[in-house]
């Protein structure tokens, strides 16, 4: 007879997963390729255990910054510090950071298990310890028992998980990820976003995450750094970024905002065509100002709202049905256009006039965001 003994597996008991995070200090990092400034004097401080996203359009320098952190790209000037170590000139294999590449970079000639065990081999850990660690790492990403599979037999989502397991098996205190979910379809991507968040909480490592998807950045991050043309434009918590954009570029990049040119009237109001809009936020100085109107912050005027609200009237030029919501495009008298979003239920749809009809919308002074116009 075989005696069956209940035994907690090494993955459940064993060592604590949480090794803490590394703090990262980027001081005036620049990278020039001849005339191209891929990265232009970027300074950034990341706290231990923080999840920071680098967000920006294609070509804004995200990969370059990640490459500098990973040690693959030497900066033209500036310095990088992990904790109190200056790592600017440290080669990648001595940095002890986990990197997840955009296309996963799994080794095609190795099995899943061999891929995941690679960091252990590189660190010359005793071979006897590998199977347990590999099993635990694969279990963590939901791929228990996949050790002997070949890479080509995996789906995109599974490859992604293997890349994650491989980057985490040596318990790095800092993990870099370059658009790791961009190749996945929407459903899987959103599921993985939530999983990554949970994983981050469990392992407690600092994560620097590159993406060009603003929703992804807002969903996952403690703070989001916005890059444009190699420059750091703003770094803030998701909500502050959304509600207090530094300029019109950030406002256009985060959320769904219409940008309308306005003139400064005084410290708390601006002129938009014939209308004067009040804002509870201080209006910045400068000649070129933009009003950033988030489409979800416009309400259809039912006449009952308080008089303090700003009102805008325009013609309905288009109504787009988008499932859970309707997007209504309005053209103001001076020709500028903006859009508002209405939940798609009967009550809301009833209040939208037919195309060409007039519609008055209200914008609360708390939501009236005026930003300086960004340089093109």
């Amino acid at each position, binding site marked *: 007879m075989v005696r069956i003994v209940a035994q907690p597996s090494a993955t459940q008991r064993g060592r604590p997963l949480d090794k803490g995070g590394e703090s990262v200090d980027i001081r005036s990092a620049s990278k020039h390729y001849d005339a191209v400034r891929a990265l232009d004097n970027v300074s950034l401080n990341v706290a231990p255990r923080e999840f920071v996203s680098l967000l920006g359009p294609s070509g804004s320098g995200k990969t370059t910054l990640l490459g500098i952190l*990973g*040690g*693959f790209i030497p900066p033209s000037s500036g310095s990088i510090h992990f904790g109190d170590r200056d790592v600017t000139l440290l*080669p*990648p*294999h001595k*940095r*002890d*950071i*986990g*990197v997840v*590449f*955009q*296309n996963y*970079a*799994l*080794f*095609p*000639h*190795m*099995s899943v298990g061999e891929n995941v065990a*690679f*960091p252990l*081999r*590189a*660190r010359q850990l005793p071979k006897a310890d590998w199977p347990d660690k590999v099993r635990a790492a694969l279990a963590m990403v939901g791929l228990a028992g996949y050790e002997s599979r*070949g*890479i*080509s037999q995996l789906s995109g989502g599974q490859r992604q998980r293997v890349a994650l397991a*491989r*980057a985490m098996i*040596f318990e790095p205190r800092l993990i*870099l990820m370059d658009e790791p979910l961009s190749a996945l379809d929407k459903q899987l991507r959103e599921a993985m976003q939530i999983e990554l968040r949970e994983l981050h909480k469990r392992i407690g490592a600092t994560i620097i995450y590159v993406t060009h998807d603003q929703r992804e950045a807002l969903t996952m991050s403690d703070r989001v750094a916005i890059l444009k043309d190699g420059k750091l434009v703003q770094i803030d918590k998701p909500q502050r970024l959304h509600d207090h954009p530094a300029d019109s570029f950030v406002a256009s990049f985060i959320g769904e905002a219409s940008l309308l040119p306005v003139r400064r009237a005084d410290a708390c109001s601006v002129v938009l065509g014939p209308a004067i809009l009040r804002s509870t936020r201080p209006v910045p100085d400068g000649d070129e100002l933009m009003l950033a109107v988030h489409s979800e912050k416009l309400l259809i005027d039912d006449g009952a709202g308080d008089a303090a609200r700003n009102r805008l009237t325009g013609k309905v030029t288009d109504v787009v049905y988008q499932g859970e919501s309707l997007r209504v495009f309005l053209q103001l008298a001076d020709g500028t256009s903006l859009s508002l979003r209405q939940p798609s239920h009967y009550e809301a749809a009833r209040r939208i006039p037919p195309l060409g009809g007039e519609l008055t919308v209200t914008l609360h002074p708390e939501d009236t965001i005026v930003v300086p116009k960004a340089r093109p």
Partner: protein
Amino acid sequence: MPAPMPDISRQYQRREQLTMLALAFPALLMILLLVVLPVGWLAWQSIWHDGFTLENYRRILAEDIYWRSFALTFEISLTVTVLAVLLGYPIAYAASIVSRGWSIVILALVVLPFWTSVLVRAYAWLALLQRTGVINQLLRQLGLIDAPLALVHNTFGTVVATLHILLPFMVLPLYATMQKIPRDLLQAGASLGAGPVLTFWQIFLPLSLPGVLAGCTLVFVLSLGFYITPELLGGGRTVMVSMLVSRNVELYDQWGAASAVGVVLLLAVAAIFFVVSRFVPLDRVLGQR
């Protein structure tokens, strides 16, 4: 049971197959005319001389000169192949890691000799290696040797010249394979803690093996049938199989014997590849897991 619906995709597939066949036809015809027919004719000649005969093959088995020649041919081909890998791999590796401009320079230097005829290059080696050649004179003037070294009219000279002529056939497939290895994989290796040496052994080298295999096959097969360099630089002592063939035809007008030698060489190569493919998991080297 209801009758299965006729599958319209079948019809489509059949039409596609016909198209493919039509497209491949010119190539198939060429292979038939230029490879299958001559080889068939060769085989026929070797066994038909006023009736069926195995006399040509009996002689190959019985006579010492044939055995020695075959052994020498394989020995030289193997030596050339091994040396070509050892020399070619670093060249291809360098070309694959330097910037685009430099890799073009390196590859141009590798391919440049193609522009000169094999005959000219063989004679050039003769001029360099012979008793009163450049190398021997230089060494004597430097006082490193007293008597001239026998660098040519032997196996050594044959190997050197053959290696020189066949090196591009090693470097080019190697470079093509190496260049396709994604740099991400090497960066990933480094980020996971592997130094340059481990990254090379564990990642770059295994992924370059298909190129090594392709290059070795090309060089080995080409040197098996090489004729000019052993003829000019072998000094009559290095008799390779190709020379047996030409002597049988030119000196003795023995087409049957020459054909038989060719057929045996062909079969030997086929046998070698069969055995190698049993021991080297070719699909694992060539394919991805």
